[in-house]
């Protein structure tokens, strides 16, 4: 509450810079123009009149969608680094936390690639630039989780999260033969990924609610709750066909989020999609997700979650004097890059009937009268009614 009196000392400049960046997020007319393009090179022309400018000027045509995606992400990363270089505590730590998610993804990418004998240099090129850290390329070498920790991860900011992973592997299992879970194979890597992410989300949540406090805590709590719930639901759905046993699964569900602890208890018991649907029924925001995916092909579970996420991130900009809008900006720009790539793919593969299935972010930015987005009613900025 009192943050409005002293926030601007350290962070006022950066907040207004982020709001300036946010005004450059593509709006309704930009998307309409992009959809009219005939080829991906036409998109390059259209993007020149937006905030993207001439970033594709030095790329040879014909333009491929991967190059487009890489360049768009590069622009986002440049802006992020520009902000991070000027940030002071606690905003600096907050922005570091934003990068940890990408670090986890990069680490898992390298390990998985190494498992399938891919070339390390090729994998490094695919890593997300926000999540690069020293020693990342060395992650392809070790074969077990313990070696991975000692060689690579312990010096990184995600080191503390790995401790939970090792505990997961070392926990005495009830039952007869215990296969050596320490070796890195496909299923263990997924377990590692989810365990790391769980530790990261909980740590970030604790940081936002205790060290930052105030509006940051309020806004980030909602956003991180959604992230946690999304992971819980995805873990459940993706583990139907695998040999992941119930105890392991329960340990991977984050302890934050609307679904924890009752929803996650029910999710861990679910063996098929109907049980999941039943488990999610009390939660108004998630009720519609699976039924949409089941009934029509128009919206996948992923897209439904993206829409929920975008609604929360848009709301983050409604308040001043907090850090949530830095996270929200990064995520919204990511979504924008996903949208641009979707449109480019639809154009290049000539699948135009699916072209408007991206997630809309803003409606008529800077046109004066801002129309209310006619999306699914999300409730006043918070998703999910209180479970009974």
């Amino acid at each position, binding site marked *: 509450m009192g943050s*409005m*009196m002293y926030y*601007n*000392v350290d962070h*006022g*400049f*950066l*907040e*207004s*810079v982020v*709001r*300036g*960046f946010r*005004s*450059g997020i593509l709006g309704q007319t930009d998307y309409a123009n992009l959809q009219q393009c005939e080829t991906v090179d036409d998109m390059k022309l259209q993007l020149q009149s937006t905030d993207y400018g001439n970033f594709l000027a030095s790329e040879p045509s014909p333009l491929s969608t991967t190059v487009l995606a890489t360049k768009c992400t590069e622009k986002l990363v440049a802006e992020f680094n520009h902000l991070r270089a000027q940030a002071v505590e606690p905003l600096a730590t907050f922005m570091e936390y934003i990068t940890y998610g990408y670090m986890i993804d990069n680490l898992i990418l390298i390990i998985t690639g190494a498992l399938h004998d891919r070339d390390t240099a090729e994998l490094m090129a695919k890593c997300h630039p926000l999540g690069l850290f020293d020693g990342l390329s060395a992650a392809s070498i070790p074969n077990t989780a313990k070696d991975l920790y000692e060689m690579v991860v312990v010096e990184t900011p995600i080191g503390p999260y790995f401790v939970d992973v090792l505990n997961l592997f070392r926990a005495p299992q009830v039952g007869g033969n215990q296969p050596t879970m320490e070796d890195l194979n496909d299923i263990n890597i997924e377990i590692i990924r989810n365990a790391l992410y769980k530790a990261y989300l909980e740590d970030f949540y604790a940081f936002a609610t205790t060290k930052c406090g105030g509006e940051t805590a309020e806004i980030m709590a909602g956003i991180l709750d959604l992230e946690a719930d999304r992971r819980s639901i995805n873990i459940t759905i993706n583990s139907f066909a695998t040999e992941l046993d119930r105890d392991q699964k329960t340990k991977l569900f984050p302890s934050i989020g609307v679904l924890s602890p009752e929803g996650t208890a029910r999710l861990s018991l679910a063996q098929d999609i109907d049980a999941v649907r039943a488990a999610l029924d009390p939660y108004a925001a998630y009720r519609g997700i699976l039924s949409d995916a089941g009934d029509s092909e128009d919206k996948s579970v992923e897209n439904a979650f993206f829409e929920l996420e975008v609604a929360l991130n848009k709301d983050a900009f409604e308040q*001043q004097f907090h850090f949530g809008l830095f996270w929200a900006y990064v995520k919204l720009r990511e979504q924008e890059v996903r949208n641009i790539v979707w449109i480019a793919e639809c154009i290049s593969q000539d699948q135009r009937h699916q072209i408007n299935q991206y997630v809309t972010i803003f409606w008529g*930015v*800077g046109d*004066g009268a*801002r129309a209310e987005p006619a999306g699914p009613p999300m409730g006043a900025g918070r998703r999910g009614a209180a479970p009974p």
Partner: protein
Amino acid sequence: MGDIDTYFGWGELIGGISPYAWAFIGTGLAIGLSVLGAAWGIFITGSSLVGAAIKAPRIRSKNLISVIFCEAVAIYGVIVSIILQTHLDPVEGTEVTAKMKFAGYAIFWSGLTAGIGNLACGVCVGVCGSGCALADAQDGNLFVKILVIEIFASALGIFAIIVAIIMSTKANFE
């Protein structure tokens, strides 16, 4: 033990403070706290203005009005302290009359009234000005509407100095 004054209670201690001390502290606080409020407001609105003007340079000149409103708060403080100091007269002799005590307390509290009122006003105008700059950068139509809020905010400072001036009208040391 003999020559030192002994006080028997807080009342005597506080009552023994010279009315001139009260008066000068009040005069100082009037200008000091007002300038603190003005400066606070200027940095709140200025930092947002500087950042927002990067992407929207057109807002530069218009939003200086917010800074001017904050500055006005400091000017109110100057006015009040100048008015207060006109009441300050050195009196011959060591006797402290009731009239002098009245003057001392009146000037102290009117200075504090103006000071704290302007402090709050300055901060308020600053926060509104920050929001105004950011909103103007997104959508130019919003500027005048949010400026109206700032005008109401700066009226608070005027209330404070009116009360302060009225409180000190009858304060005379002579």
